[in-house]
């Protein structure tokens, strides 16, 4: 009677498993969590990790962590692709990805499709399970709420549903048909924010996309921040805390950390860089050259920013501020 999607549930958990994880693994204390990109990736990101990335694919993404994952040649990642753009594409370029829960992926919005991403799917290298931006957000919200599922009214009547791992269900009160979305608890999420303190309290300016829920839903949360601030920044104005400290496992200071992506109120897209990257995506050879130059040949994100150059960084700030 009730249909269900035939897509694979890439990451599953019961509500009691969510609770047990949180009881046993999340530190409640106000402890200093400052670390480095390298240590955080080595500690938390493994072959086969189910990874979710904060922001909106090319807006407010944590490029220091993404580059480090590529540099560490992590394999077989499964990715939550709620508007995945440059974040996912670089991981695919680095051959890190096996499967994607796709809401939006393999494309760059107004810039068109990504040849690199398409090639990986069309060659069968990457497995796709279909979702939508809202259904992935609600799956994450379910885990954040400690629930095994959330009901919703989208997805129904579509092939997106048929290639998802959702199920139909009935409302216990009204009898109406609803879609049930299974909770998603990523192994690791990486989130770039505007402000963080050393304990992990975070504040995001502009749209949150789903990062408040993502931080609550994930087993491990690594945060990179444009600026590290004292905890009084949050305690004096606790409404501005987007993510409370106890969700966060590691904090790294990373100014310009979303480059070449946009960081609201800080800097706009580096369109030249993205154009060159997309051009390199035409074939695996050019892509290897790109990665050699920007990822493998630099030791860390500071060296990467030196390659970008101060002039460009200043220009992107002016662009963001509409000057």
């Amino acid at each position, binding site marked *: 009677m009730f249909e269900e999607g035939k897509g694979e549930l890439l990451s599953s958990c019961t509500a009691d498993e969510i609770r047990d994880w949180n009881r046993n693994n999340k530190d409640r204390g106000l402890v200093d969590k400052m670390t480095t990109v390298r240590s955080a990736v080595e500690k938390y990101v493994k072959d086969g990790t189910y990874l979710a990335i904060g922001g*909106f*694919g*090319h*807006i407010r993404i944590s490029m220091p962590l993404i580059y480090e994952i590529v540099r560490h040649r992590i394999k077989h990642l499964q990715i939550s692709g*709620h*508007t995945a753009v440059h974040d996912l594409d670089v991981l695919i370029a680095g051959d890190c990805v096996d499967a994607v829960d*796709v*809401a*939006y*992926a*393999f494309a760059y*919005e*107004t*810039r068109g*499709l990504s040849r690199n*991403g*398409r090639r990986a*799917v*069309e060659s*069968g290298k990457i497995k796709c399970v*279909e*979702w*939508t*931006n*809202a*259904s992935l*957000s*609600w799956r994450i*919200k379910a885990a954040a709420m400690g629930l095994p599922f959330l009901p*919703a*009214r*989208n*997805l*129904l*009547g*579509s*092939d*997106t549903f048929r*290639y998802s791992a959702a199920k*139909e269900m009935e409302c216990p009160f009204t009898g*109406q*048909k*609803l*879609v049930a979305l299974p909770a998603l608890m990523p192994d690791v999420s990486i989130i770039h924010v505007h402000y963080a303190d050393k304990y992990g309290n975070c504040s995001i300016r*502009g*749209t*949150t*996309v*789903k*990062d*408040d*829920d993502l931080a609550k839903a994930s087993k491990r949360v690594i945060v990179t921040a444009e600026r590290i601030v004292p905890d009084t920044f949050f305690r004096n104005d606790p409404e501005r805390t987007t993510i409370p400290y106890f969700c966060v496992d590691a904090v790294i200071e990373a100014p310009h950390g979303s480059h070449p992506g*946009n*960081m*609201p109120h800080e800097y*706009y*897209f580096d*369109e030249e860089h993205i154009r060159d990257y997309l051009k390199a995506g035409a074939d695996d050879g050019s892509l290897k050259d790109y990665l050699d130059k920007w990822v493998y040949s630099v030791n860390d994100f500071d060296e990467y920013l030196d390659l970008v150059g101060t002039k460009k960084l200043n220009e992107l700030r002016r662009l*963001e501020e*509409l000057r």
Partner: protein
Amino acid sequence: MTSYTSIELMATVASHQLEDGKIVGVGTGLPMIASLLAQKTHAPKLIIFFEAGSMAPQVPTLPISVGDSRCAHKAVAATGLAGIMETGQRGMIDYAFLGGAEVDMYGNINSTVIGGHDSPKVRLPGSGGANDFGSLSWRTIIIAMHNKAKLPERVSFITTPGYIDGPGAREEAGLPRGTGPFRVITNLALMGFDEETCRMKLISVHPGVTVDQVRENTGFDLIIPDDVTISPAPTDEELARLKDIDPDGIIIGK
């Protein structure tokens, strides 16, 4: 007579479909341009929602992404995907404004794959927020290119459901009652949907386009009523505003 491109015409015809004072959930590309144009012409109080979380922004210059900082500029509220789509789920979003690679005679949209899902000929981006906006908003406006391949009888993959396979199918599937596709704007014509059959129906052909041309370029039996009109050409005012919105022709120039 002022010269204009096919894309400019699609943008102006599309913008006319939006009512002032209503809320529209806007997808990337041409829907963005057409919504901004509506605000600068006949619908200054049109409220735009972008899926990444922005409500009623004052977009200062052409965005590259529906989630970038231009799309949240001077918004009245910055929320997230769930915040936007829950607002839609409770019936507050009047129009969904979407693009699609394929649109069929029931207004179903494919933006996921061409060919089989598991071994696709062309992998497209997927739903993004399209299925959500299209399922939860009251009326869906779709922009597509007009040829037999892009307007097939049946899309090969329903990313975003239109009327699925006919009258009552949306409600039976569990989608909110009273919702569905409203208009389709192509490079050749403006189309709506027949109330009785839920099938796509011609409303107007664009200037210089014949009904036969439309018929020949449609992959299904398009309903052609007696009162087909001619779409209005863009005015000088509209063309000037389009230039303001996209001075470098990033989308309009495509």
